[in-house]
């Protein structure tokens, strides 16, 4: 008999609600009472039953900002760059983008369904993780790689730690680094943005770039004189891959070979690279929106870029033939997307201004150290992840000085 009672009462009581954690604000019984007076007044405007007011702690108004709005705004700010990558790389890019974003959302929904946590997939954090991940992948990444990445980002890097807000490392970057180590081959095969080049065949002849040379050697590419020919060539071959400018630069440094792409190529993205690092200008456009709307503060991006510029500048000044100049380093690889969209991830970066500056500088310096002397041509992902690990300790020592410590000297009695 006691067991029977227990079952019935357990269903209704807050004991059941507390199973789902302390997150929900009002429990079902309270909500039940909340409904009744409203119904009563709706039926009879003369209000037979007294209306029950709600009480809550002050403040009673909110800014209207919400987690999901922030996430979806960042998402939207990345879309121009994502769209450009589709233009450059065609369907392959679209598939990568769709698989990563969709995969992340589906995986997050499944996780929340099976862990019986609060469903918060609509807040856009999973979609954003997926999109950011897609933007760090090579355009030709296979569906399997994309899905594995989405799984690592959403489950291993985030859900395991307790979900949004509790993950110590940037989920998208964790996933990317996992993929880079697990699938080193596919992850470093960078297709040439053929479609874009095809529109400007003169480019092929105006400048001789190392990756184009490589491509030309491997195919009868240089002989295609017209855009149409290039287009048909692009349609014929699955993919033409080449080294990214950074990899070329690294080779250049090691062996003194290879020639480099021009700055304007970097800016518009006419170079091999991952989906998100190919168009600096569209990324900056998205970042500008975020900065203007106050969704990110200037501290991290500016100090990140500053770190890169200082390191690159010093090494370039010391040995201009061996080290590339700062502008090259700013425009190539993932520095821009990293500085504005990855390092500024709220959850994994410091919240206090001084901490943000330290974090940004750290990211910039580490990026350059890895780029110049490390084993990988690109270091943004590793740099940000390493700084993510430092975030708690940075945070601890950069707390703002509270009000009330400024000494006040009493004026002399006159």
């Amino acid at each position: 008999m006691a067991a029977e009672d227990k079952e019935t009462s357990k269903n209704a009581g807050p004991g059941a609600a507390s199973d789902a954690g302390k997150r929900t604000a009002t429990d079902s019984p309270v909500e039940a009472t909340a409904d009744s007076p409203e119904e009563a007044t709706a039926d009879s405007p003369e209000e037979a039953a007294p209306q029950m007011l709600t009480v809550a702690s002050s403040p009673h108004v909110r800014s209207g900002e919400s987690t999901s709005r922030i996430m979806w705004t960042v998402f939207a700010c990345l879309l121009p760059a994502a769209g450009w990558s589709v233009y450059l790389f065609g369907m392959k890019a679209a598939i990568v983008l769709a698989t990563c974003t969709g995969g992340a959302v589906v995986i997050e929904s499944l996780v929340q369904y099976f862990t019986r946590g609060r469903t918060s997939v609509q807040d856009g954090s999973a979609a954003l993780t997926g999109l950011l991940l897609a933007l760090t992948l090579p355009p030709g990444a296979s569906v399997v790689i994309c899905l594995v990445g989405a799984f690592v980002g959403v489950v291993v890097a985030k859900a395991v730690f307790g979900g949004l807000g509790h993950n110590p490392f940037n989920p998208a970057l964790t996933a990317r680094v996992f993929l880079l180590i697990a699938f080193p081959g596919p992850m470093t095969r960078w297709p040439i943005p053929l479609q874009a080049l095809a529109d400007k065949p003169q480019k092929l002849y105006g400048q001789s770039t190392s990756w184009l040379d490589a491509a030309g050697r491997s195919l009868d590419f240089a002989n295609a004189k017209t855009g149409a020919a290039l287009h048909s060539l692009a349609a014929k071959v699955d993919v033409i891959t080449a080294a990214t400018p950074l990899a070329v630069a690294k080779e250049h440094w090691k062996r003194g070979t290879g020639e480099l792409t021009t700055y304007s190529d970097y800016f518009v993205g006419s170079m091999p690279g991952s989906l998100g690092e190919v168009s600096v200008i569209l990324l900056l456009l998205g970042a500008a929106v975020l900065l203007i709307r106050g969704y990110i503060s200037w501290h991290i991006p500016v100090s990140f870029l500053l770190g890169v510029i200082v390191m690159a500048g010093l090494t370039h000044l010391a040995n201009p033939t061996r080290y590339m100049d700062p502008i090259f380093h700013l425009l190539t690889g993932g520095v821009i997307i990293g500085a504005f969209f990855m390092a500024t991830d709220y959850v994994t970066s410091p919240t206090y201004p001084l901490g943000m500056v330290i974090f940004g500088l750290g990211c910039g310096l580490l990026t350059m150290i890895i780029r110049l002397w490390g084993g990988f041509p690109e270091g943004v992902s590793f740099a940000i992840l390493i700084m993510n690990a430092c975030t708690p300790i940075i945070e601890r020592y950069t707390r703002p000085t509270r009000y009330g410590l400024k000494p006040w000297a009493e004026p002399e009695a006159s």
Partner: protein
Amino acid sequence: MSLILPILVLSGIGAVMGAGLAVAAKFLSVEEDPRVEALMEILPSANCGACGYPGCSGYAKELVAGVDIGLCSPGGSDTVAKIADILGVEAVALVPKVALVRCAGGRNLAPDRSIYVGPSSCKAAVLVGAGPKECRWGCVGLGDCAEVCEDDAVDFTEDGLAFVRADLCIACARCVKACPRDLIQMVPADRKVHVLCSSQDPGKNTKAVCQVGCIACKLCARRDKASFVVENNSASVLYEEGSKDTPVAALVCTPGAIWDANEDDLVSWLTDPARREALKERQAELKARERAERAAKKKAAAAAKKAKADKADESGPAEPAEPGTQKGGQ
């Protein structure tokens, strides 16, 4: 050959390290009272903190140092006997206890005055305008007690009132500390009659906000002065020596705030609306019977006086009705 050398080197390193550890364990070891380990074996390992020490190991260390051996309520008398055995001291009788939520006012009987919006925690809720419940002493029902209970002994009625299932309670007293309204009390497990109200407001105020709130009418204390006390407008059972279960108190309690475990199961007592109706009838019955008894006694006394046979009757409160007759009223 190239394979053997590393194996040998690594084995050598392992052997040296192992020897070092063995030496360290021998010479740097901390003397520990063997009784502590023995005590750890028999303590219930609930690490509940009921004894007031940090975990069972903390209590075991303090036991050796000579603290009260009767503090482990989850362990009960058996554990105390074993402790006494290990320490070679005299065992003390440990009164088994259970937690009791001293409020009977669910949302149906003690309604809320507003809808609380905020973290689902009693502690947080009572900070907002002293809580959504009209009664400022009553159970808020958001489950801070259930949150800390590791034995799922705290449950809720459909009207959001917390109660403790005595069969699951291990008497760790965590819920006692968790309740922001201090509603939960550890009571002897063998006691059957309890006052389930903690309101210290004057009867008038309590009555206005709760149908089962103690209105400090003192009827219970009048029946049994040794077991019931009414202080600060609030009746409570004394539970100490000299106090006993007084089933009639549950019957005479005007608002019906006294629960007799022999009569009703706690859940049905808290939730069954018929109970309150039945109580009124039984109270009226008791009143009538006692009036009749008093009248009869008076008559007898008068008759006796008239007859000048004996000295005056023994005055004082009427004797409690016998359990048998009570049952008849049900």
